[in-house]
């Protein structure tokens, strides 16, 4: 079966790859582009660890047909750090012990970024709602919620 050419913007950089029909965006990012920050969790839309931003909107990359992002902008955790500095959200996650095993962290950070990009000072309930599609089996969520609130409150230096 022939491959499909696909071009899109990946963390601000234009990329061009060939995908098989039916390939999901997560596989394209990890196996064809080498961006290992989005993780495979459930493949069903239940866990959220594959979350990425497509044109600034939170999407599950494992449920996104790769060729639907042609010409669009895809942001992953790999594009979040600012040069040698961590993004304020990453700093806040580290300072607030929001990552234990770390497997959910890429998705949590993208969900948090999607929230703060459109609502810079969310309430606690809005943070809970924003990460409600992301499962964490270690932290019990409280440190993650606190980290996002801390990043929003600007109490963490970038």
């Amino acid at each position, binding site marked *: 079966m022939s491959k499909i050419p696909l071009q899109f913007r990946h963390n601000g950089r234009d990329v061009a790859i060939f995908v098989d*029909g039916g390939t999901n965006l997560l596989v394209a990012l990890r196996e064809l582009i080498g961006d290992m920050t989005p993780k495979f969790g459930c*493949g069903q839309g239940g866990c959220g660890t594959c979350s990425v931003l497509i044109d600034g*909107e*939170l999407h599950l990359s494992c449920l996104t047909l790769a060729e639907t992002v042609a010409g669009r902008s895809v942001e992953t955790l790999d594009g979040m750090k600012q040069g040698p500095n961590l993004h304020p959200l990453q700093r806040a996650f580290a300072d607030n012990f929001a990552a234990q095993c770390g497997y959910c962290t890429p998705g949590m950070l993208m*969900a948090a970024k999607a929230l703060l990009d459109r609502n810079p000072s969310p309430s606690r309930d809005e943070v809970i709602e924003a990460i409600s*599609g*992301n499962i964490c089996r270690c932290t019990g969520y409280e440190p993650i919620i606190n980290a996002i609130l801390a990043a929003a409150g600007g109490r963490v230096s970038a």
Partner: protein
Amino acid sequence: MAVTVKTFASASEAAGALSSDRSARYLGGGTLVMRALNEGDVAISTVVRAQDQALTRIDASGPRITLGAGVTFARILADRDLGFLHAPARSIGGPAVRNMGTVGGNLFAPNPYGDFTVALLALDATVAVAGAFGARDIGVEEFLQARDRQPGTLVLSISCTRPVSSEAFRYRKIARIKPKGGSVITLAAHLPISGGRIAGARIALGSMAPTQIRARAAERALEGRSLDAATIAAAASAATEGTSPPDNALGSAWYRREIVGVHLRRLLSGQE
């Protein structure tokens, strides 16, 4: 296994491709079809897409609203004219699923999903479909009964009449995880009041049968009566009639039968 992806400019071309290939599935937001592909569903060999703007149109200006099949739940939540549909839209998934999942796809979502369709069933929505025999409108109840026998049908849009007041349309989803989780049961009620009495009651239930169903015995208990405690009790006790709930990880069939009347009573009496 690689599949063939066919992308069309118009919905009618996509409908033609869908009706001529039994192993083709229409890709909307991806939350059902991509999931099936990720699980290695060999029954799907072709994925059909349409980039037709008509499929993502919202017409919410008048008393009758129309949602293109490709309208996402996030867009419904962003539209102030669609306030009566915000509760069912918000009850689905997390933000990413709401950015992806569509009202058309929700018509095909199996238990414990398909909550938005419960609301559409209570609102007596009409589904516009395109198939091998051209486009036509059918009631959502008839659509759900025939759904699994008509795999080649493409949903174009869904329309319903706006309820006259927020009291006239009520929705409740019972989930084990808040604010996100699959449905233990889902209930929606449309209760138009005429001269102090209910005229045209429609009660819809999710996760109480293989597809979303109407609780007709409960509707009969409400019809022509005022919404008082005795009427509500009669409707609640009739809620299980005609149901065949599933056993799954979220709840047993027995449990669902036990609680459906309790939640219908709470819904009808306006309790949180």
